[in-house]
């Protein structure tokens, strides 16, 4: 019975790790987009 507890734990950890990294990737992409937009602004401002 307790086997299933560990299996659940394993899948939970997997979900958190993969989902967490995906969210981090999204944050990185957002940051890059923001920087790109800033470059646009600076060039217009010149």
């Amino acid at each position, binding site marked *: 019975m*307790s*086997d*299933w507890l*560990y*299996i659940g*734990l*394993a*899948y939970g*950890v*997997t979900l958190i*790790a*993969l989902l967490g*990294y*995906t969210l981090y*990737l999204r944050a*990185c*992409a957002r*940051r*890059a*987009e923001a*920087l*790109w937009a*800033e*470059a646009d602004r*600076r*060039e217009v401002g*010149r």
Partner: protein
Amino acid sequence: MTASTSSALSQAPTRGGGRVRILGWLALLAVVGGQGVAFLISRPDRDMGHLQKIMYVHVPAAWCAMVAFLVVFVASVLYLWRRDERHDLLAAAAVEAGVVMTGLTLLLGMIWAKPTWGVWWTWDPRLTTTAILFVIYAGYLALRSFTDDAERRARWSAAVGILGFLNVPIVYFSVRWWRTIHQVQSSPATVDPAYVLGLRLNAVAFLVLFVYFVARRYESSKLERAAETRIEAAALTGGIHV
């Protein structure tokens, strides 16, 4: 209107967003599907019982990490050879994915070891090697975060990436010999065809996921560097040139 620049990154990057997004959904589908199939077809193992199901994540993640560090090695060598910044960004993206995969491998290894052997950690050679790789490449990321200059960061991390990979076989064999002397339990090997099929299926699924991780990270750091390059260009102005 900007002056043309020397960096290959100066052109507006191809926003590979569409393709990467498709890859993302594909990865999700593959992993969920692979796990589902493996979950359903697997029979309780003679030694491991239902705990065997943990292996369908643990083993593919470990394989993926190996692929990741191989990519790091190749990209690092290419960087030092060609000095193309994109190779550095690729290496860094692969290290991140590799560290995530080794981390996952380690956690699952512990979760599996506890009910099986009653301890969270054993000095199994593969697991121990994974732990050492985790630390080596975490050091790689730490070094990157402490170096500001993009060019220096690229050279230094390429060196660390190459040396780290050269150490993989040496670490593995040293831990294996060490272990045979000290008699530590090892993971049982199973040749049940259903089990092997499940592993293979999920290895492919994780590979797709890994490619998605690396592609997404690579695209965003390429965009970031391109934006930085444009901002740099905007700062360069004035003076006389003779």
